[in-house]
């Protein structure tokens, strides 16, 4: 599954070679967007009344973001403005951000909306994940690389608008994901230059720079590898490592603490494709949704108890294609 994702990224990259530079704009719309607009595979749609329910947004390898009713698990809509939709994040009013590694744009959708209400140009960086600080509304975007394959970055868009403040790290050339703590500090993760080992950096609440930090794991001398994203579960930061579980971490004044893990016994999380259902943001989430693809490329999204884990309690698969990210937007 991961191999497939990488292959797609590569095609996008190759396709981009002959195209004009991402910086050239026509009437406020980048050429990348224009190019993409002509090749839209389908129209966006949303069931009437979908927005009254808690919704699940799944970014898929086929370029669609499919939307589901959290309770009924029914497909209620499709967002189709993307080349390579990757990470997603949700702000406190339920707006959903989708980062597109193909167009280097970040699209913001209202809960249940079919048209982006805002587009942020993240170029020349290629975004992979995002997070919103619920207190300030700041949007952080984790970029896997910059122009011509140069180092990635963390781009912070104050109030999710305008031009970002860009932070780079001397140790992390390739950022995968990030998440805000409840105190407004940001934990970021990315890969070491020549391996799949995961490294971490912290952006303090009022910080001016990313600070490399050590994140302890379930055992002494633990090395993280393959961490594809970070989420906030209402109480702790949550990491995955592409295995069959997720790991809770506390980040307190720049010191990271190992807390616990949630093991999912009958499905593996293969990438960043998990979302945590947290109906009461003051408390830890109660359910985790994990994307899954099996050997025959049959994809689905599975529900598990959280943080207890164990066996899945439900699933849906209609419209799911090698999911990358799962975001849950609560009804207002």
């Amino acid at each position, binding site marked *: 599954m991961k191999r497939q994702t990488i292959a797609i990224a590569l095609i996008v990259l190759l396709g981009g070679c002959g195209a004009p530079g991402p910086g050239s704009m026509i009437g406020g719309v980048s050429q990348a967007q224009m190019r993409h607009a002509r090749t839209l595979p389908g129209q966006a749609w949303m069931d009437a009344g979908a927005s009254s329910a808690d919704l699940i947004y799944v970014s898929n390898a086929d370029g669609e973001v499919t939307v589901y009713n959290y309770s009924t698990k029914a497909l209620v809509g499709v967002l189709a403005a993307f080349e390579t939709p990757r990470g997603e994040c949700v702000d406190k009013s339920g707006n959903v951000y989708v980062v597109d590694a193909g167009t280097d744009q970040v699209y913001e959708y209202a809960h249940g909306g079919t048209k982006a209400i805002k587009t942020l140009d993240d170029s020349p960086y290629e975004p992979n994940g995002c997070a919103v600080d619920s207190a300030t509304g700041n949007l952080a975007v984790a970029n896997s690389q910059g122009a011509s394959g140069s180092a990635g970055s963390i781009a912070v868009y104050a109030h999710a608008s305008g031009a970002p403040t860009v932070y780079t790290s001397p140790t992390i050339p390739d950022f995968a994901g990030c998440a805000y703590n409840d105190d407004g500090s940001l934990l970021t993760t990315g890969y070491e230059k020549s391996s*799949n080992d995961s490294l971490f950096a912290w952006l303090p609440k009022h910080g001016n720079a990313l600070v490399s930090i050590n994140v302890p794991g379930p055992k002494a*001398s633990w090395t993280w590898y393959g961490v594809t994203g970070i989420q906030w579960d209402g109480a*702790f930061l949550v990491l995955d490592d592409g295995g069959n579980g997720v790991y809770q971490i506390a980040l307190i004044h720049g010191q990271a603490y190992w807390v616990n893990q949630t093991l999912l016994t009958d499905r593996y999380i293969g990438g960043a494709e998990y979302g945590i259902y947290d109906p009461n943001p003051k408390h830890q989430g109660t359910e985790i949704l994990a994307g899954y693809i099996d050997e025959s490329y049959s994809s689905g999204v599975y529900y598990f108890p959280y943080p207890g884990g164990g066996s899945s309690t439900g699933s849906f698969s209609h419209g799911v294609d090698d999911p990358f990210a799962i975001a849950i937007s609560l009804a207002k």
Partner: protein
Amino acid sequence: MMKTRILITLAAIALAACSGGTPASPIAPAAVAQLSTSVAAGWPVAAHPDRRPSWVSPDIDAKQTQVLFVSDASTLDVYMYELPSLKVVGTITGFSQPQGECSNSKGDVWVTDTNAQKIYELSHLGRLENTLSDSDGYPVGCAWDPKSGNVAVMNIFDLLGKQGEVLVYPPGSKQPTSYVNAHQYYYDFGGYDGSGDLFFDGRSEGGAFMLSELPDGSKAAQTIKVSGGRIYFPGMVQMSTASSSLLVGDQECGGASAACIDQLTISGTTAKIAGSVKLEDAKGDAVCDLVQGVEANGEIAGSDWEFCGYTASTTDLWAYPSGGEPSAGNDSTDTTPVGAALSSGR
């Protein structure tokens, strides 16, 4: 001869080879494959085994040498600085997440290893003397009681990330007694006064600073209400050696990325901030973060964890109580300094 004997006994293959006379490969390929697979599972290739040994300079054999032990949460080592030169005279390796420190009058230093759930007792020369295990939670701070010899350990939270506690280990014992202040959720650093009373700081569940006292002989800790100012984020706790003040570090002095040490006058269950020592770096800017420092001999010894993004972290000496810029500093050793304790040789 004996060697042969043992190896043969353990090696049924060898016996077979001898009797059969076949100079075959000693291990069937399948067995090799099986073994290497299992090994890979138990010893992940991606691991970074810390294979640097601890070292200590022979120069500190001198018993009067004062050594500042500083734990580093990034390099996962404890550095030994000779005072007042701040020259590094040793490095203790092998920790999983070293944080808070405390020391006794003999020069022994305890270092909490949060992730390992252990508290290591090191000699003045950096040698491991004893290990305390903490099965309840994640230890951060520690304090040594000069009255009883007890060692108190502050668990920031339990194994599920919920309310922490104070564990008190009697001298020579590995079985601690647990104490909490029901109102305090996170437990950070602590210090004893000369009468067996333990003061420790931390935060409420909502994240507000809290100071508590476990009076000598008491079964529960109580909240000490702080007036005369605000402490934003818990840092060091130490009874001053220069006055009757309780020194409490604030890692977000004034709500900013700055460090100060507040001097508290304790009266019953209340404390008044009577003064505050502002710490600066060598350029005259506020210290970004002092997690734990030690006040002794008219100085504060500790480190500036420079995450504010301007310069490197430093380990410094500041005049006490005047504060200000450091009188000496070492900016080439620590990355993420956390705990600090002073060890005086006997």
